[in-house]
């Protein structure tokens, strides 16, 4: 089963719970098999199956809870992004280990966590992410930018409390 490990990993990241992740992957495969006729050969299979997984998650109890907690500013794409002012001293993540980043990722709101994982870990193109999350390309870019900043802040905060 290609993608099985990755789908499970992504499901666990979304649900943060082994049992829920298993239920989510199982339901995703069941839906994918049932709806296979809706998949058009030549279109993106990976985006299609991740979209099923994500939509299934969003209708689950944990998914509903996670999306109602998303701050409204997440979706306002018109808001201009403040310029990043970094000094070499503030270059972070150099010392941060894997666990720290994992902890920080786990703290992020689901929309940030999922867009980061799809881009960095799944190495999806903006177009694939746009198809998977059913959001316009512009939103993919602005959400990614915010997610990256939120992750940096979360890592910094965790480093500070160490």
């Amino acid at each position, binding site marked *: *089963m*290609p*993608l*099985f*490990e990755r789908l*499970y*990993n992504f499901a*666990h*990241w979304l649900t943060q719970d*082994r049992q829920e*992740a*298993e239920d989510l*992957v*199982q339901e995703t*495969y*069941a839906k994918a*098999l*049932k709806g*296979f006729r809706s998949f058009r*050969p*030549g*279109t*993106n*299979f*990976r985006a*299609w199956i991740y979209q099923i997984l994500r939509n299934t998650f969003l209708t689950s109890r944990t998914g509903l809870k996670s999306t109602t907690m998303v701050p409204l500013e997440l979706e306002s794409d018109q808001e201009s*992004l403040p*310029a*990043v002012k*970094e000094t*070499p001293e503030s*270059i*972070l*993540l*150099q010392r*941060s280990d*894997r666990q720290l*980043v*994992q902890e920080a*990722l786990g703290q992020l709101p689901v929309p940030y966590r999922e867009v*980061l*994982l799809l*881009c*960095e*870990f*799944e*190495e999806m*193109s*903006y177009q694939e992410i746009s198809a998977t999350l059913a959001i316009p390309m512009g939103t993919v*870019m602005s959400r*990614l*930018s915010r997610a*990256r900043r939120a*992750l*940096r802040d979360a890592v910094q905060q965790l480093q500070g409390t160490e």
Partner: protein
Amino acid sequence: MACERWTEKLDAYLDGELPASEAGALAEHLRGCAACAAEGLRKVQQKRAVQAAGQRFMPDPAFRARIQDSIAARSPFVWSRRWLPILATAAVMLLAGALLLTLSGSQQQVIGELVDQHVATLASLNPVDVISTDRHTVKPWFAGKIPFTFNLPELQGSPFILVGGKVSYLGQSPGAELIFRVRQHQISVFIFQDRGPREERENKAVRTALSFEVRTWHHNGLRYFVIGDASAQDLDNLSELIKAAG
């Protein structure tokens, strides 16, 4: 400020999403601007950190087995019977029953794996690693990549076109996946060394999950699987051509 214009585009640049013309100009700017280069480096480090942190959860082997079983248990007949008249359903269930009697569980699993691989090939933007319609190019490409050799059929005068091939794996053993096209349909032909028990070596024409046609046979120590959504007749014809070449 000139730098702001560039820092806005750094993310897209590092994600490989900036058009080539802009990417060139940004790379040029990074070479001459220490602040932007430092920011770029920080972003690359963060990207790598998330990439490394992303792999965190592994599925339980028992869960994997459960999913595999549930997929193997779903035949296309079971899904589609809701849409078929009752009479057709009865006939189909009889056929499914007959198939279950002749098809061992492990072979079903093997075919399920290969159907998955075929679907992944259909969905891939780069379905083949060696692109050629010439069998004299495709066959030598596999030399040194798989532990056996095979013959490819002469397709002239047939409706089939060789698209190319790639290395595939089944049960940790490398084999060949060849892609053929007939009209708008793609057909995968998998060839592996035959290591299955004797009862699985019989020649079988089976129809399997997701409505794909499957043909499989054993010849000269190799196991062949032909999988596609083309007609049964097409799969039979291609199988005959391959058998004749082998």
